[in-house]
């Protein structure tokens, strides 16, 4: 946690409390209730001088290809002190490869002593694992890092209260932390596009990842209404902006187009098969694409009214070389996004604003819109307070 080196000797004057607060009983009740359901404070994990003990739950591809390489690329000292998986042989194999002690039982000393617990498993088992950990050890001084969509479906939402039992719960929405989306956010933040009116994600936004990424451009505004039409998810958000996520999702084989009242932006991956066509069809004030030199990624090319510039991604090579299993660029971007997510355990970044309530919200909104393809669904905003109240219910 942040610790101020304070000098406690600066003198101050006496304080005279001279008035009462006059607010009605109902207002007080509303205020206190709102206070109770507030999402976990996004506090920093620990004194970053001492290494943090990390315990991993799960040994699948996601853990092997992304989580472990991401931990190896952090700027902060961490020690991965144990790994557990239902299939202990998998855990042993991964542990052996990376020099991590595998555990046959979840209830072990490494878990009890962990500062950070990472859960990356099939969503239907998440609820049970959370309950087991909660029964076994005190979690109030531990940080939980958990993959989205967190739970399998609405039936597990009652377990959301367990996420509040941790000092901090971080959901790994790494897609919105891809470096190209960070560049887009920077351009928006500098006011170069003005107020955003429309965000189109053509084949590059998987359900909740797509919604989270689009909302990250809008300071996480909530969805007011949504519908599924012509293989596209349409969302209307608070500030008169429309988000359109066209399916099917094809990783980065598609494009992003943003229209603001001052300018437009097109992010079109160079490897997208129709890139040239799209660039002609959708001229934009800012054009962003990946830049390759002899088939190797070197950075992002940004062309705008100010000229052309190459924006480097210094982490790319180190992340790529840390990964044993997949050297694909998309996987490297995923790990880079994850590094940003993990960094939010130690320092504040865009992910610090995206807590588990937002993670559950995006997951449920997209799920509901998908399951009611022929209907428009008004007032999806209501999901947010519902999740908040559920998660606070047994606190």
């Amino acid at each position, binding site marked *: *946690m*942040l*610790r*101020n*080196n*304070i*000098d*406690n*000797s*600066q*003198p*101050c*004057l*006496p*304080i*005279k*409390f*001279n*008035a*009462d*607060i*006059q*607010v009605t*009983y109902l*207002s*007080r009740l*509303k*205020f*206190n209730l709102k*206070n109770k359901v*507030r999402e976990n*404070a*996004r*506090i*920093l994990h620990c004194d970053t001088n001492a290494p943090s003990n990390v315990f991993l739950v799960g040994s699948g591809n996601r853990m092997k290809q992304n989580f472990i390489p991401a931990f190896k690329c952090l700027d902060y000292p961490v020690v991965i002190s144990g790994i557990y998986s239902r299939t202990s042989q998998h855990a042993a194999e991964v542990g052996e490869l990376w020099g991590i002690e595998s555990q046959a039982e979840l209830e072990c000393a490494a878990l009890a002593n962990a500062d950070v617990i990472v859960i990356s498993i099939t969503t239907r088992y998440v609820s049970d694992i959370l309950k087991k950990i909660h029964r076994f050890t005190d979690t109030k001084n531990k940080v939980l890092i958990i993959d989205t969509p967190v739970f399998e479906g609405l039936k597990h939402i009652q377990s959301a209260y367990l996420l509040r039992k941790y000092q901090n719960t971080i959901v790994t929405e790494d897609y919105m932390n891809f*470096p190209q989306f*960070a*560049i887009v956010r*920077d*351009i928006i*933040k*500098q006011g170069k596009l003005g107020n955003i009116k429309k965000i189109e994600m053509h084949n590059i936004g998987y359900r909740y990842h797509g919604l989270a990424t689009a909302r990250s451009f809008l300071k996480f505004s909530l969805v007011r209404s949504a519908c599924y039409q012509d293989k596209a998810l349409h969302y209307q958000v608070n500030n008169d902006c429309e988000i359109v996520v066209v399916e099917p999702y094809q990783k980065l084989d598609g494009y992003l187009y943003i229209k603001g009242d001052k300018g437009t932006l097109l992010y079109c991956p160079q490897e997208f098969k129709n890139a040239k066509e799209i660039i002609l069809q959708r001229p934009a004030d800012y054009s962003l694409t990946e830049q390759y030199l002899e088939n190797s990624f070197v950075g992002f090319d*940004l062309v705008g009214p100010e000229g052309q*510039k190459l*924006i480097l991604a210094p982490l790319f090579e180190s992340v790529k070389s840390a990964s044993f299993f997949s050297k694909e660029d998309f996987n490297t971007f995923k790990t880079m996004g994850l590094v940003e997510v993990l960094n939010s355990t130690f*320092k*504040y*970044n865009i992910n*610090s*604003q995206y807590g588990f309530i937002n993670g559950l919200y995006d997951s449920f909104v997209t799920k509901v819109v998908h399951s009611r393809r022929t209907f428009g669904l008004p007032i999806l905003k209501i999901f947010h307070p519902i999740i908040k109240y559920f998660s606070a219910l047994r606190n």
Partner: protein
Amino acid sequence: MNFELSPKSVYGSLIQYGVALVPPIYNQHCINEWNEKLDCFFKYEVSVNRNYVRADQLHTLGILESILNKDLQDLISSLMNDAVLYHCHVYEIEGEQKSSHIHADNGLNGWHRDEDCLYAVEKNQLHHFSMFVYLSDVADENGPFQIAPISAFDNLKRNTPSLKITGQRGTCFFFDRTFFHRATPNQSITRRRVLKLSFQNKDLFNDRIVLPEFTKVKESLIETNSDISHWFGSRLDEVSHVA
């Protein structure tokens, strides 16, 4: 409910009660000089509900360096050794008001916690604080600042005591922005003028420090006054992707 407490230190008082009153940092002569310059500035502004003189404008007026003087630097570094600014402006609120100038319609008579810092609160730790210096005399009817010792971890109870801070120009105090506070309505016919500085830890999320009002000052101070340029973000590691 009237009672008096004597906290031992500024930091202790902020942690426990969310507020600390300090002896004036700026003398009357200094404040009169600032007010003369500010009067000239405001004369050319159309008076609205709230009028601001932002950090870069304070710098242009030649006020900023005397605001950020050595006494203030010592005081701030005694509270937070990695402080970065979040607010730095002088503002006026209009008179003849029946409600608070901010959050008036929240059903709590303007009482609130600053939502933009509630993502990072810890018990008995100070992460976000503001300093107010009254630049006009503030009596009961001039819209004094009011604060209650209710942290982000406390519930609002019946008959909670609060502190309404009145005083002459030069009155100076600090408060934790996550504590319950409000601006009382300025019922007088005169505008209330306040210098407001807000600080937070360097590593906390700060989307304001990249605003031109701060970056312009930073560029200028790096060359002339490196002692305080870090308050404007000169030591932030975070580098914008788009230069």
